[in-house]
């Protein structure tokens, strides 16, 4: 509920995790691509530096775990909204153990932890889009109905509407929040269809920011006390057309962030962090 009173995108903390050496070979991917581990490490380092130094967030850095090649994508391990953190049960069995370190970190941040006890439920945080008013949860290869139900149970204040993910790994593989009530969405047909579903389900009208590349539609929006609207988006080197769209946003602090290596294993910008607003009642 406190989330209802804080502005959308207000965060104080971020949980990230280092890239293990096994990342290059072991990370799951939908298409076979060669990952340059060194480039990936540099990329991630820059990403964390932006959060920490440029934006001044308290960054909790979890150590890498070699047995969990995908562990850098912390977003999938937990969904945090307000004071509540839902520790997920990731859809890929190889990733299930990623939640352990995440749970501990969230506990240390004094969040109310909800766990997915149901063995039939799967949920990846990448399928969860929180708009500030409600949740959309992608039903994908990684997230099932039961997982969505548990999400709804964990965040009772909000409406949770499922959205079928017909193409792509996660719901947020083609969309994300780019501002209050502003949804960035890819221009592919499945993406546009998903947006239609979301619009149909919602009592609220969202603005739509269509970008030409689905993957570029995944950006990180924040509303920070002394910076106002902040947007992390993929660089124009990667997605020139899409970058132009973001660059037209007025009154934003725009921070292009390179994601060219992680994207090879379906990693997007939101995937690498879990954001938390801790100064809720203090």
């Amino acid at each position: 509920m406190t989330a209802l009173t804080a502005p959308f995108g207000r965060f104080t903390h971020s949980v990230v995790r280092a890239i293990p050496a096994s990342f290059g070979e072991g990370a799951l991917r939908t298409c076979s691509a060669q990952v340059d581990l060194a480039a990936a490490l540099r990329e991630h380092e820059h990403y964390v530096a932006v959060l920490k130094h440029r934006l001044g967030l308290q960054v909790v850095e979890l150590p890498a775990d070699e047995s969990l090649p995908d562990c850098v994508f912390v977003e999938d391990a937990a969904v945090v909204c307000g004071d509540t953190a839902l520790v997920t049960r990731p859809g890929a069995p190889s990733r299930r153990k990623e939640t352990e370190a995440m749970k501990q970190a969230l506990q240390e941040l004094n969040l109310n932890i909800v766990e997915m006890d149901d063995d039939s439920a799967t949920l990846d945080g990448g399928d969860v889009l929180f708009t500030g008013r409600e949740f959309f949860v992608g039903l994908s290869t990684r997230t099932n109905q039961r997982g969505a139900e548990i999400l709804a149970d964990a965040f009772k204040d909000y409406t949770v509407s499922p959205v079928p993910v017909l193409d792509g790994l996660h719901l947020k593989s083609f969309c994300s929040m780019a501002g209050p009530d502003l949804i960035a969405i890819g221009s592919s047909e499945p993406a546009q269809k998903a947006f239609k579903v979301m619009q149909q389900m919602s009592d609220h009208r969202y603005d739509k920011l269509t970008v030409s590349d689905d993957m570029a539609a995944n950006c990180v929006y924040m509303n920070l006390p002394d910076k106002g609207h902040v947007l992390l988006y993929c660089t124009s080197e990667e997605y020139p057309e899409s970058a132009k769209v973001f660059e037209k946003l007025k009154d934003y602090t725009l921070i292009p962030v390179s994601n060219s290596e992680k994207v090879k294993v379906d990693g997007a910008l939101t995937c690498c962090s879990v954001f938390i607003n801790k100064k809720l009642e203090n």
Partner: protein
Amino acid sequence: MTTEVGSETEVKKEPEKAEEQSPAPEQDAQAPAAEPKAEAELPCGETAPPGGDGDAQPKAASPEKERKQKEPSAGKGISRFLPPWLKRQKSQSQAEPREAEKENQEKVDEQQQPGQESAPKSPVSEAKEAPGEELKSDDKDDKHSIGSADTQPAKEEKGDESLERSADVKEKEESKCEEKKEEGETPKPDSGTEKPLLKAAKKMKTVMCHVTLLDGSQFPCEVEKRAKGHFLFFKVCEHLNLLEKDYFGLSYKDAADQKCWLDPAKEIKRQIRNSPWQFAFNVKFYPPDPSQLTEDITRYLLCLQLRQDIASGRLPCSFVTHSLLGSYTLQAELGDYDPSEHRLEYLSDFQFAPTQTKEMEEKVVELHKNHRGMTPAQADAQFLENAKKLSMYGVDLHHAKDSEGVDIMLGVCANGLLVYKDRLRINRFAWPKILKISYKRSNFYIKIRPGEQFESSVGFKLPNHRSAKRLWKVCVEHHTFFRLVTPEQPPKARFLTLGSKFRYSGRTQAQTRQASSLIDRPAPYFERTSSKRVSRSLDGGGSRTQHGSANHYATCWPTSLLLSPRLAQWIRLHHPLPRGELVWSDSQTPLRATLVLNRTACLRAFWCLVCVRLASPCLQTSLWFLIPQSKLRVQGENIYVRHSNLMLEDLDKTQEDVLKHQASISELKRSFMESTPEPRPDQWDKRLTASPATSLRLQAQGPPVVKTEMVTISDTFAAQKTEISTKEVPIVHTETKTITYEAAQVGDSEPGVLMTAQTITSESLCTTTTTHITKTLKGGLSETRIEKRIVITGDSDIDHDQALAQAIKEAKEQHPDMSVTRVVVHKETELAEEGED
């Protein structure tokens, strides 16, 4: 009782109005319709019982229609004497013509549809169509085959009525019209008094209704057996002092224990059937933006409803939200956090969540501390600001199955129809997208505006026919309330005049907002008291001597008073209290005294307030529940009451206590009298000693509604100064005492022409109230005189003083525009040892 007076007077001007109103829409409707009678006939069947309509119709309607109308009544009347099988045939044949007409109507509807589709209101017109559909029984898709079966009983009802109670009907009619009129005008019924000739010498069967209010208290209300829903509803709203009433409704449990809304336009009896006359006052339409409500009292009631919704789990919230809302509740109910008195035990009396943990209570307290300085009204507003954002706020859920037999929930809300599977919202149909709502047997259908990715008609399976109908009704009502802006438009009129058994008869949200904007009264005082606490405290012994709403009063003793310096001074001087019992804050003005739970102190405080109350009727409702931080003007004195949940543990008092208590009361009262600008004669002392059988006489002066400033009572039997000595006598003997107080200005005892007289008797636990209402015509003015005889029977445990005060108080509340002119206390005491239990 009151109700009678109230409604009669209000009703007076109605008939003509109604006549003007009802025909007009009919004519409008007729224009497009091929068969005028279809529209004309049905409305009279539905909107009102035949008797009244008979008067109204001829003006606008064709003779044919008139005939039609009479037919059923006569037929039905006779049918009462026919064997059931014959009866059945009869009604079937009757239903047929109707159906045919319906058919025509359907066509008309369809014709209109295309044109309306682009207009935002089109769904509206569609919804209106639906009721028409309900009546159909043929094979058409949207038609309800149950329809005809449904309509028949309705007809029968009408028939019975018109035969049995032609006079009665008129009156019903009036009260119905009253509502209509009210919609357009001042919400507060003004009670001018005129001649109610029809009522004369009619004996009335009344029933006691019990309405559970949102704070958990019971409001007993006597209604005529044939009264319509709105009559009871108005009584309740009047009792609550609620003007923005359109968001609320009365519900009852049907035989299957399903919650149903009482249709204000229909007879109560016909709706509840064999269920007990037990109702609940509830929010029916949750305002999407409560801050737009005009009055705090409305918001307060909405808060109470939401607290109930939350505690019952109907409105799910997260832990944090439970805590936050709980903290606003505490702020509203208890005021600022006070470490000395707000201990954790306090909280267990509140229910913040379906399952409340210690952790949550701690969180609530923690948050409560942050609200310092917030007034109760502000706390309520904050509560609502947060509650309204909850995903299930204002969503009325119904169990259903989708076309594949999967269990789902259908949620009706301000914006449309929502479909849930488990906790997930799997679909949503906004009102503008819905062209038609209908039901057939246990199926519920919505027709969707084409062009969307969804099929144009969606069907759901409800558990049974009744539930399908209930859902349909709720949809029609929500749609009308939230979507319709200008109900005067022909579509609305058509809607109303259609032959369905049902239509939304109230105001739309747009109208109610407009009406609320005209509310011009000082914010009414009202009590804030947690329902939880009331019910808890009833566990104690106190409840048995209470009746009805009196429970309420007895259990909510103030623990903290803000007194005028003068009054405070007096208490200090004359009642040196044991240390700790009365804690004085610094000698500010006004003084705040904190009464720690102690029966004597509470009683004193109570009596002090009773006296204040009695002396200044302008204080209207329950003085001793005044909200924290609100100041009440009592003839220049400020009185501040904060109540707590720390109730009196026991109401058993020793004889000594009684004496002490009474003695101190008289002093307290005297002091109070002294402190008021216009000292009253101190006859109260004498009254105090009188007891059980009490009869009050209230008198209203004719049409001019004069707010009486004082209860003026002069003692005519000053000699009868009784003492309480009787209580000390252990021997069984009976004692009879009569004390009469009469207002000095009552010089109007010369008899006028008697117009009506009626007697209503109501019984509750230990009281029997007989209300005798007489209306007389005197020099062109009519005068209503209400004599209430309240017989209180019970063991000597009863606090008679309190009972009397309660009676006076209730009388005052029920008849705010009347003054008490005479109080006769008649005591018959049988003093026996075994009386105590």
